[in-house]
């Protein structure tokens, strides 16, 4: 039997309408326990209204060595940002 509990990644929604955000990770033997531990570790100062837990092994991460081919090409494509429109003066809250 493995002695260590698996690692879980914790995501907290701080308010209704906002996205769940990654806040950290913790150990737990199963998903229910991960939720309870997350409640005690990450929401005890009123930080959240909803919790997601995902076992860390289920997350596939990009390789830092691949960052050039993955992200470099986007760096000089300023035209992909919607900053070339003129906004009429009458429009507020933009």
């Amino acid at each position, binding site marked *: *039997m493995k002695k260590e*509990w698996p690692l879980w990644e914790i995501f907290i929604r701080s308010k209704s309408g906002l996205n769940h955000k990654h806040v950290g990770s*913790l*150990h*737990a*033997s199963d998903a*229910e*326990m991960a939720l*309870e*531990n997350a*409640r*005690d*570790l990450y929401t*005890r100062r009123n930080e959240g209204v909803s919790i997601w837990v995902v076992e860390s092994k289920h997350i596939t991460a990009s390789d830092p060595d691949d960052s050039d081919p993955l992200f470099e090409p986007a760096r000089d494509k300023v035209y992909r940002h919607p900053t070339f429109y003129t906004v009429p003066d009458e429009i507020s809250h933009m």
Partner: protein
Amino acid sequence: MNQYLLQLADNALILGHRLGEWCGHAPEMELDIALTNIALDLTGQARSLYQRVAELEGIGKDEDDYAYLRDVREFRNALLLEQPNGDFAHTILRQFVFDAYNYYLYQALAQSKDEWLAGFAAKSLKEITYHLRFSSEWILRLGDGTEVSHAKLQAAIEDLWTYSGELTIPNEVEKDLAQQGIIPDLNLLKPAIEGKMSEIFAGANLSMPAGIFMQTGGKDGRHSEYLGFILAEMQFLQRAYPGQEW
């Protein structure tokens, strides 16, 4: 009424103190936080209750007088709550038995015709609901876990079950208040409490012990030797340096 509020308060304070003893010693870091979180909830409940007793008595005492300046015979907590932490299985079993009782009790107290008590119970019930969820989950995991965890939980049941009955055996104070309709009749709550316990026990491959002699007396101030040691540690500072503040 004050005697009853002290029963509720002392249950919370003494169990909170016991759980606090796990701080830095729990089997996992996450459990360390979980147990002390529950301890803080309970200590907070005890504070509110002591403040209420002070207000009702109106003789210039404050919450600290009840926690730090009463001796063993004046404490009204049930015997179960002063029992030592033992191993993690003992702690979880003690917690579960208390949570199952406390959950149905506070649900009923939230309907009390005493307005303060009803409000306090409704507020605390949210915390207690979580405590019951936490301890139920752990009974299931330990009971239905490995051979070792099952055996440890079984040993805890054998050690502690004799203290489980006192919670639902009404004393004179409780009989009197139940008759006035201020608190529920414990005999009527018992089926729900035992139902919850046997439901969780069944899921954990455990059976509810039957025909065990039940110890009583804590609610009337007759305690086991353990409470004296708890008070010695908890009250040391106020006894040695009266009136000392943070």
